[in-house]
């Protein structure tokens, strides 16, 4: 699917904690992400699963204090981002890795024109004169489907969908290798969502940009992504290619997620959501983090933390069932 198979991002054992007065919040616990050039990974999970923290961790923008990256490494183009200096990191942000934030209403500066805001990222990373940067920012606007003549307008003169286009223009202005989109369509209505996703997909292909798409919408994932990782309580509990995950989900939680989506072909009166709530991140359950909500849970689940088991090529599941310790078959 992707044009080249060069390794771009390799995250191993990443752990991020927030130290607060009420206790330590383990937001991200030893996650692993591998991404090649031009690939799109969908990072799916409930609110509070640690998706955004992971994204901020990659950008090294976890607010500190209270946040802290406690373990692991983030290898990007061969160098560990956790070791580079703040100055070098600044040259990477917006240039090689850029990020789209959730709410376009608040992620643009209200007193700068959109043209200035696109030009800013160009000025920071490229040695261009002000006029050239302004010209390039108009080109970027045209690229995302906004007339270049609107570069001198302020954000409040744009609709939500157009603002998100502006944000996309900013994030792609320096032609990054990796784009992290943190729920880019959550704040938009459904028709605009489709347009924005289309736009991102097209631009991504055009520039051969890899993308991490954070979402809780499996429908969005199926449209855009090559690979999917399901997060729960700061862990990636299942990762697979899009095809594998949608045809053959294996983790009880993933299966539960699919159970909570209405199916057009079957007639049901009620959806079957995953019962219970996300555990309190300051007080995570022992053993498998999902066991209190898991319909297949046995005593051992409370004691032993499951390892990641590769059940087929690229398809990894973190569940004791696949370690052969529980005899059960997970069914949809």
């Amino acid at each position, binding site marked *: 699917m992707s044009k080249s198979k060069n390794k771009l991002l390799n995250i191993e054992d990443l752990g991020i904690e927030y130290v607060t007065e009420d206790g330590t919040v383990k937001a991200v616990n030893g996650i692993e992400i591998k991404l090649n050039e031009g690939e799109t990974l969908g990072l799916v999970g409930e609110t509070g699963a640690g998706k955004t923290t992971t994204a901020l961790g990659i950008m090294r923008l976890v607010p500190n204090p209270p946040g802290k990256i406690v373990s692991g490494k983030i290898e990007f183009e061969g160098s560990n981002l956790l070791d580079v200096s703040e100055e070098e990191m*600044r040259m990477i942000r917006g240039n090689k890795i850029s990020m789209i934030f959730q709410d376009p209403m608040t992620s643009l500066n*209200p*007193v*700068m024109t959109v043209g200035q805001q696109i030009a800013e990222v160009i000025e920071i990373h490229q040695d261009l004169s002000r006029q050239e940067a302004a010209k390039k920012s108009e080109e970027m606007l045209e690229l995302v489907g906004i007339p270049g*003549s609107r570069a*001198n307008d302020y954000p*409040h003169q744009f609709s939500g969908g157009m603002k998100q286009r502006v944000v996309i223009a900013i994030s792609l202005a320096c032609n990054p290798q990796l784009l992290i989109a943190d729920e880019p369509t959550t704040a938009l209505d459904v028709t605009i969502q489709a347009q924005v996703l289309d736009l991102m997909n097209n631009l991504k292909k055009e520039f051969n940009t890899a993308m991490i798409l954070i979402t809780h919408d499996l429908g969005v994932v199926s449209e855009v992504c090559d690979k999917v990782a399901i997060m729960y309580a700061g862990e990636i509990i299942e990762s697979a290619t899009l095809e594998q995950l949608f045809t053959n989900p294996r983790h009880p939680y993933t299966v539960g997620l699919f159970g909570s989506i209405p199916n057009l072909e079957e007639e049901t009166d009620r959806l079957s959501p995953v019962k219970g709530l996300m555990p309190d991140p300051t007080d995570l359950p022992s053993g498998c983090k999902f066991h209190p909500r898991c319909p297949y849970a046995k005593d051992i689940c409370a004691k032993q933390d499951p390892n990641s088991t590769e059940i087929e090529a690229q398809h990894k599941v973190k569940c004791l069932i696949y370690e052969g310790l529980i005899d059960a078959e997970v069914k949809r």
Partner: protein
Amino acid sequence: MTSTLADKSRTTLKKKNKKRSQWAEVWRRLKKNKMAMLGLAILAVLILGAVFAPWIADYDEVVIKLDLVNRLQGPSAENLLGTDEFGRDILARMIWGARVSLRVGILAVGISILIGGSLGAIAGFYGGKLDTVIMRIMDIFLAIPGILLAIAIVSALGPSLINLMIAIGISSVPSYARIVRASVLSIREQEFIEAARAIGANDTRIILKHIIPNALAPVIVQGTLGVAGAILSTAGLSFIGLGIQPPAPEWGAMLATGRAFLRDAWHVTTFPGLAIMITILALNLVGDGLRDALDPRLKQ
């Protein structure tokens, strides 16, 4: 065909119109505000008068030369606003006084915005211990009434124009620090600051390009009000003899000396008092107008 051509030229014209700089845009919006324009007109007259004072009235011959024969004369064709207790023309003295008042007002506020604004921005942006240290020092300053602090500083440094500016400037530093800090605190939590970090902007750039412009509106309003306050403080300090020394003309000092003749010669105090009042009113009108004009969200 011709109509599409005309359309095209119209859109290019429109495009050209839109290519206005930010300040031209602010000016366009300010122009719509009639009260602000009135204030600006009054200020313009004052500033012109102050700048061209030497051509309007000779300092040595008219402004400070005693003419005791004509003392305390009411308004007449010769002395439009009358004369004071030494027979000096009040209009001429007021025009020269505007030089002092405006200069002290603007420079004193400049000093306090510069010092107070940077302290507040640093305290608000970095937070933590730095914030505590800076703001507690500001609190200590704030505990002393501004005019008392100014009196103390002027008494220590000696009365002169520059010391007056420093005294008035320093005494209002804490209020600017607090205003700027408060707005910086709310702005730095906003997502567009995080977005600015995510495009690789450094702290200096974030403070200068993203935080300060967003925190500017309250500072500008406070600043124009502050110029009015500083003019009033200058007048007050001169009134008690710590400001501009006689025979140099200054509105507050004129008010102070005229007080003794209030029963016989109303015009000696009335006109300098009116000048102070009108100047402050004009500054407030401009301040309000600027606040609206600077906020692109209020743009129609």
